């Protein structure tokens, strides 16, 4: 009986923690607007009059995007560090951090999204060939 009571208290704490968190969500404005989230949720059939749930979804999405972005940022920085090791004079130039498809596809792959892109488009017979053999 005591154990049950303790577990019940534990559950009550968890519930209260959750409800407190949901209440605190209303203070925090996520970067992803509520209207956008509502639009896609309505499209999928999600029905809930509670605004806090929409905020929860928005925050979760923001966390997801932030995770993907930070992973690709790490890839980008790693690539820049590798380049700098070879050519020290380019250190000043490559300070700009650019989100590229390469980094993005690498980080999205860990999340289960497979993004594949063409490396080049063969619109002429000499595309991708060595310049030496191109003259022939």
């Amino acid at each position, binding site marked *: 009986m005591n154990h049950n009571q303790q577990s019940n208290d534990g559950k009550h704490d968890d519930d209260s923690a959750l409800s407190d*968190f949901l209440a605190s969500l209303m203070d925090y404005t996520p970067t992803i607007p509520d209207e956008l989230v509502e639009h896609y949720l309505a499209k999928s059939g999600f029905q809930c009059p509670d605004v806090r749930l929409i905020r929860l979804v928005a925050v979760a999405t923001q966390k997801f995007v932030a995770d993907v972005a930070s992973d690709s940022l790490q890839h980008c920085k790693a690539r820049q560090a590798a380049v700098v090791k070879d050519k020290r004079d380019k250190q000043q130039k490559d300070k700009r*951090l650019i989100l590229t498809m390469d980094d993005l596809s690498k980080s999205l792959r860990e999340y289960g999204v497979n993004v594949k892109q063409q490396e080049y488009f063969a619109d002429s017979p000499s595309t991708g060939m060595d310049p030496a053999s191109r003259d022939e």
Partner: protein
Amino acid sequence: MKDGGLENKKELENSKKQSKSSKFRSKSDDFALAIAKVAVAQVCESVGFQSFQHSALETLSDVTARYIYTLGKTTNFNANLAGRLESNVFDVIQGLEELESGLGFAGASDINRCLAKSGFVRDIVHFVGDAADVRFAYDVPRFPVVKERKGMGSFQEKGEEPHGEHIPSWLPAFPDPEAYATESTVGNGTTSGSDGVKTGLVRIERKIEWPLLNFQQQFARNGNVGDSSCVGGDSGKAWEVSNSNPYLAAPLHFGEKEVDVSPVVLPTKLSNEVASRDPVSENRFVGNHVSVLETFAPAIEGIKSGMCEYSSKQKNVLYNQRPTVHFKIGIGKKSLNTAPDFISKNKDLQKIAYWFENDNEKDDRKRRAENFMKESMECSQEPGQL
């Protein structure tokens, strides 16, 4: 290689059709996607990126949209599974866990875990605590905007009797009989003489046109078949519409003229016969595009008032009703003063400019006119040079 290309084309078209027909990505979704792009860009900026490739941003925003969509779908599914219509916070958390299960989260292997203390929720709490509060850049209105549709009146609502017993009264009423052409008016045209026939035909055409216009107007307004109650008010409007819209007006027959012939200048192709006789027309011949004529229009009007007789020969009937088309034929080069025979023409230009000089005209207008003249001279020269 050719055959391979064709096959790829077909596959590409098929894949395009598939992607277009899929419910997720539709044409009406462009606005939402654009907003998603802005939001994702803001998040990336807060993470530390300084710029991005367009394709990368589009991909990431598309993935984000699909994430929200999938989350909503999973949540709804969980709620329905529990026998509820409205979703719960626990449905959402379960859906989140399902999405994150690929990466793993704390407590995933515990089968008796409580959702309230899910590891994922804890992560979110930490995230909210750490992340800076960056608001969305724009004010987003509620979308999609739902348009209020005016329903068609049923027989009952309009107080009309349906045409037969087989038609129930709660069905929408038939459109007004004038909205579609009737055959009874055709007989009127054959009774009188030749003139009468012409006018009769014109009358018939007009009569057919008005109800059709009527019909189309109502259709456009209601989004449905038109209301019979609106007919009376619209007939006057339809007449006005047909009067003002030159494309819907009755066609003029040979020799017939409109009463108001405004002395607006025409393109030089039509007024070539006049141009050869007229000293003033030199500038018109030079300027082959209407924009030159347009600047001189007020001045030319005054001169042309003395030449009304020539206007009758020209077919300016059609042009009165249409707005002047402004298009520039020629190479869009700025006028350079390096042409060899430009200096000799300069005197002519000054003379022409002097003819149209007005005390009321401002200096910059004169300068603008001169520039137009110079450029038109350039344009007329170059085809000759070619």
